């Protein structure tokens, strides 16, 4: 009984992680740096969704608006802070993204305060599956997460933009001489990455029920674990990595020690890195 419930929770959490990880890894594929401010896209998504819901919009509409807004903010942040540093090597970008994370996180705190706020999820009756009561919102989360990943798959496989993104990810110089405007692909990538991050943040807020300014920054670690586990830069690896990490965290919290659910993410991660230093799907170095 507990096992089934744990698995459902684990899959839902895994879905949240997987969606977020896909957003982070997409941006990595094109820009080749790990955006430490990615967690703030999650935070912004959740808080903007809350804001829109508080002015009277229904949750789905508020969510869509919030996600689009985060996408636009993502493009703005990248243009203002990352693009000027693109040719200066890895470290300036990494450090700048940490700075951006601190700025955004504390701006949110300045406006919203430090206290956790309840996310307005409508009460739903749990449904019974084979004698086990499963909360409906967990299934909604899993469904939305799977739909989002399907959308990313369609984007990458069948649209011109997705093909260009993969081309730039494979070889930026070659993509440029083939006439792909890397600037526009870059903008589009940041938009999609931040948008997915915003969606991940809303899903995270639903799983956690409350939201706080540091939620994205804390969750970032788990997202990193999924990204590295799947192989950095590989969207499909990130999906698998996210689901595995979610399951590991829930199983560990249920059967080993509840305090350490974050640490379990890293035990899995470190084990994999030792065995396969480039992740399950052998990402880009």
């Amino acid at each position, binding site marked *: 009984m507990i096992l089934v419930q744990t698995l459902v929770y684990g899959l839902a959490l895994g879905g949240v992680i997987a969606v977020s990880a896909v957003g982070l890894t997409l941006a990595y594929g094109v820009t080749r740096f790990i955006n430490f401010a990615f967690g703030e896209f999650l935070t912004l998504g959740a808080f903007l969704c809350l804001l829109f819901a508080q002015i009277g919009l229904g949750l789905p509409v508020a969510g869509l608006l919030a996600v689009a807004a985060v996408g636009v903010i993502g493009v703005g942040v990248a243009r203002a802070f990352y693009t000027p540093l693109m040719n200066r090597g890895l470290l300036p970008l990494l450090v700048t993204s940490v700075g951006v994370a601190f700025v955004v996180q504390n701006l949110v705190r300045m406006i919203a305060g430090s206290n956790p706020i309840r996310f307005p999820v409508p009460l739903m009756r749990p449904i019974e599956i084979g004698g086990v009561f499963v909360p409906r919102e967990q299934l909604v989360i899993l469904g939305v997460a799977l739909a989002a990943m399907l959308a990313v798959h369609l984007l990458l496989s069948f649209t011109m933009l997705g093909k260009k993104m993969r081309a730039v990810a494979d070889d930026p110089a070659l993509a440029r001489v083939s006439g792909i405007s890397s600037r526009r692909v870059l903008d589009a990538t940041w938009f999609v990455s931040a948008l997915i991050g915003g969606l991940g943040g809303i899903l995270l807020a639903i799983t956690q029920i409350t939201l706080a300014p540091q939620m994205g920054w804390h969750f970032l670690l788990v997202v990193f674990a999924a990204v590295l586990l799947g192989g950095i830069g590989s969207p499909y690896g990130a999906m698998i990595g996210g689901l595995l990490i979610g399951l590991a965290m829930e199983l560990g919290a249920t059967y080993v020690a509840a305090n350490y659910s974050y640490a379990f993410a890293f035990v899995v*991660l470190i084990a994999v890195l030792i065995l396969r230093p480039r992740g399950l799907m052998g990402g880009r170095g």
Partner: protein
Amino acid sequence: MDLIAFATGLISLALIYGLLAVGLNLQFGFAGVINFGYVAFFAVGAFASALVTLPPPGSEAYLAASARYEIALGWPVWSGFLAAGLAGGLLALFIGAVSARLATHYLAVATFAMAEVVRSVLGNETWLTRGEFGISNVPQPLGDLFTPESYALFYLALIAVVVGVLFAALRHLGEAPFGRLLRAIKDDETSARTLGKRTARAKLRALAIGGAVAGIAGALWTHSLGVIHVGQFVPIVTFQVWLAMLLGGTGNHWGALAGAFALIAIREGTRFVGEIPGLDQIAAANPSFLPSLRFVLIGLLLIAVVRFFPGGLVPERRRRAPAASGAKAALPAPERIAPAGAPALEITDLRKSFGGLAAVDGASFAVRPGSITGLIGPNGAGKSTVMDLVSGVQTPDAGAVRVAGQEITGLPPEAIADRGLGRTFQTPRLYPTMTVWENLMVAGMPQRHETLRAGFLRAAARRQAEAEIAARAEAVLGELEMQSMRDERAETLSGGQRKLLSLGRLMMRRPPVMLLDEPAAGVNRRLATALFDRIAELNRQGTTFLIVEHEMQLVMRYCDHVIVMHQGRVLAEGAPDEIRADPAVIEAYLGGAVA
């Protein structure tokens, strides 16, 4: 008096952050290790020192303080400092050993994550640390002898002494061969490995020293506060240390120290944002408004420093080689490789594919000892890949590589370099931020002088080795006619000079077999001829060469034997004249129709 107390507190804090920044600088500024979890070493140092020195449970002092922790030793404070250094160093060794194989990105994330795991352990294991509540009666060394006011001054003096000693030691280390090796690793690790350097070990040492230093800083800090709790060790501490180091300018310890003072000044300056009229009402409604605003400012500062002051406040001084003593050592003759009968280098059915593309597709050839063997072929024939496979920069999918009859297939580059094989790269891989002289010195310095122990002990032996290698460097500079450039950074050299310097680095080591990848490409004709004359001279002294070269006139004039590769295989080999007349070779080069 208040002002003095205020200043004392700030200077103490700045010195502790300065020590942290210097330790991080050794890890990043020298060895290039991106450590985003530096606060973890600070934290374990602080807790180790606190728990070693606190009065043990059950003792009078324990009961008097109504303490709740379950383990403490009650040892003297100096043992706490040792424990702190040990804890920081051991944690760094552990993290380094686990993540040593990880590339830059993975390392940044892995260290960041491990610091969070350390914090989560310290926060959850309340029996040990009291978690968020913390422990409030951490002993202050010699606290009974002073009034609280004068104690701060005494403790500042203590901090100054500890930081001063460690600072001097780290600076010394940075100037020693060990520091030079670390800078080479930061500039180009692969190239350092092909010169036989055990780079993983050196990086691990740098990590451990940086960790130990951070641990001691943690001890200094916790004994000055008297209070320790896990909330003190959040990730922003790591990035404040990064800010201090970047503010100061990476790669030089004075900069890191100065950056820490600037950081503390700025950080304390932001306390005054509350004085701005109008903000107080907002702050009254939201108590986290002002602290958050300060973090916003620190974040913006981090961004601005990286963007607009990449060199930091204290730019790295131009390093100069010590004046040449005039002594020029004779270059050592290459060691003979035994057994004499075997080929100097032999590859058998070597294969390497990238995705679906077979770059090397079953190539086999042998290089006769004492020869200059040319390796030619059209672009994409697999020549450079063969070089990478032989020198261990890449691992072959199948096949065997032997040097003097000994199999070296799949060994790491440093092990292959030790077997007597040196190489240059098609695009020279020098240490761009180091001077010409330093490039030569790193190449020539034997590993036993690049250890930590050699950095502090055996000064006479080290100085003698340094003088000996310097005399050799002088001789190489002379042979390459590069004396006037000895203090230029390698990144300022022209393409031809870079080619010369990469040959010079090999001359410092004199491996019996040298692989040169297009030594004359991009070099003007006069210099190219001079370079090949140099190669011929080295060859007369006993060095075996395998040379990839496109300039046919040079190949025909200088090589004894030529191997032609085409589409990943050996197409033909023989004396230069035979090769020139071979119809298959002409076809491969000219595309068939002409033959």
